[in-house]
């Protein structure tokens, strides 16, 4: 399986703080790869660096073989990586439709955008009912759906998801994970960062465990689910 996204020996600093220490991961084409870890382990830092919001001090990030480390964020989106960020970050004073249109900012294929809009509204019919509504008036779950739909509007090769379950009711989370699986089954490669390790490992193919800025483990998701040390640390025993 070839890597759609490859991270090698990545070192990222926040001022004096060494946040990522020589991180290497492979996100295999067509799979869901999940990144587990406690708060402050560096999961969000890694996603922000991949998206270009942070510049690494050293190391490589390659998408389909092309180096993107240190590239400007909008150029990285053009190369096929889009992100649904932590805390959703929808644009509250813009309508749902405008949020989705911005998701397709880098594209100019009007027909393709129209088709993808139709597609995401089939995935999340709730958004279709609220197209003209300001995104700030949506519930937390709906905002998460919008953040993911917006990221999908870029028609990414690799979709980065940062904590899609954060602060949401279990029944809504279940729906969201079902949709992630469906998006992946339709051909989009996914890198999923999640606190809810159990849910993440159930839909993922491969899992990485990140602790204080270093990769501690990498294994097929099923093996991690069965791993006693993982069960103890992340799955509540």
């Amino acid at each position, binding site marked *: 399986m070839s890597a759609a996204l490859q991270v090698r020996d990545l070192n990222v600093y926040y001022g004096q703080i060494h946040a990522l220490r020589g991180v290497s991961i492979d996100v295999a084409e067509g799979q869901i790869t999940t990144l587990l870890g406690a708060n402050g382990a560096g999961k969000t830092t890694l996603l922000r660096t991949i998206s270009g919001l942070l510049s690494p001090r050293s190391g490589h990030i390659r998408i389909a073989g092309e180096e993107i480390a240190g590239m400007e964020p909008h150029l990285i989106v053009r190369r096929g990586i889009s992100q649904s*960020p932590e805390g959703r970050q929808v*644009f509250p004073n813009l309508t749902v439709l*405008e949020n989705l249109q911005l998701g397709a900012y880098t594209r100019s294929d009007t027909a393709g955008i129209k088709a993808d809009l139709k597609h995401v509204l089939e995935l999340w019919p709730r958004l279709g009912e609220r197209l003209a509504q300001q995104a700030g008036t949506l519930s937390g779950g709906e905002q998460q759906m919008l953040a993911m739909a917006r990221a999908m509007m870029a028609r990414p090769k690799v979709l980065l998801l940062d904590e899609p379950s954060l602060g949401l009711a279990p029944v809504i989370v279940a729906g969201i994970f079902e949709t992630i699986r469906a998006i992946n089954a339709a051909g989009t490669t996914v890198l999923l960062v999640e606190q809810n390790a159990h849910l993440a490992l159930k839909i993922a193919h491969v899992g990485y465990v990140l602790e204080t800025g270093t990769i501690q483990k990498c294994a097929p998701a099923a093996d991690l689910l069965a791993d006693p040390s993982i069960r103890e640390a992340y799955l509540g025993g």
Partner: protein
Amino acid sequence: MTLFIQQVVNGLSLGAIYALIALGYTMVYGTLQMINFAHSEVFMMGGFFALLLARATGVAENPTLAGVALVAVATMASCALLGAAIERLAYRPMRKSGRLNLLITAIGMSLLLQNSALLVWGTNVPFPDLLPRHTWNVAGVTLSSNNLLVFGVTIALMIGLHHVVERTQMGRAMRAVAVSRDAAALMGIPVDRVIAFTFALGSALAGAASMLWVIDNPRVDPFMGTMPGLKAFVAAVLGGIGSIPGAVAGALLLGLCETMVSGYLSSTWRDAVAFMLLIVILLYRPAGLLGKNVAEKV
């Protein structure tokens, strides 16, 4: 009653020009949370650009309507370039170093432009009469062709601005960048370019304002931007800085206040009242008339 209506006409005319300048303050504040104190100098430079362009094209000697329109458009374009250049050369390198530094840079830029203009062109330069003045007497109220010009141009520009901000992809990008630069970048929006565009757009409106201003007050001066710029800033705060409709509402209100004070009290009081209004707003409604503190849902 006639005096009242007369002052309403004058107030709206003055307020319309303030509004064109105030939009630049409010749009830049909306995207960068900075007060661009050099904005009043973009307005001032617009006056000099108009003068130079009118001379260079011969419109100063033989003013035609088409010629004046051409000079106006070229003035707006020059101001847009100047605004974008100021952002690129002075503000962008300072953007990561804190808001106070940015503010001081803006004040420095303002002084630089004023004194450069003083050095190159001197003070109190007469501006040619470009348009014939007509006045009409409608039931005792004097209406001048300049009033109509100001109203017409301002309304047209507002409609254009509304279209750009609400209906185009660049406008959506501007609003997104105003909410969060990081989230906007994740959409693939080239944030730096959008910020430069915001400066250019606001500066073009200031250029239109200075064109209207010098047609009515035919002289240009390196310090001509100070008072209208300050008033427009007050108007933007009055309406709620960051809010586009707020800037327009604040500017019209301020223009009306000033002309009412001039008409009924004394014109020596008009500036004092404008700044008193600022103090009252800052004390009792710091978010402005149309500004609001948007709560975030987590």
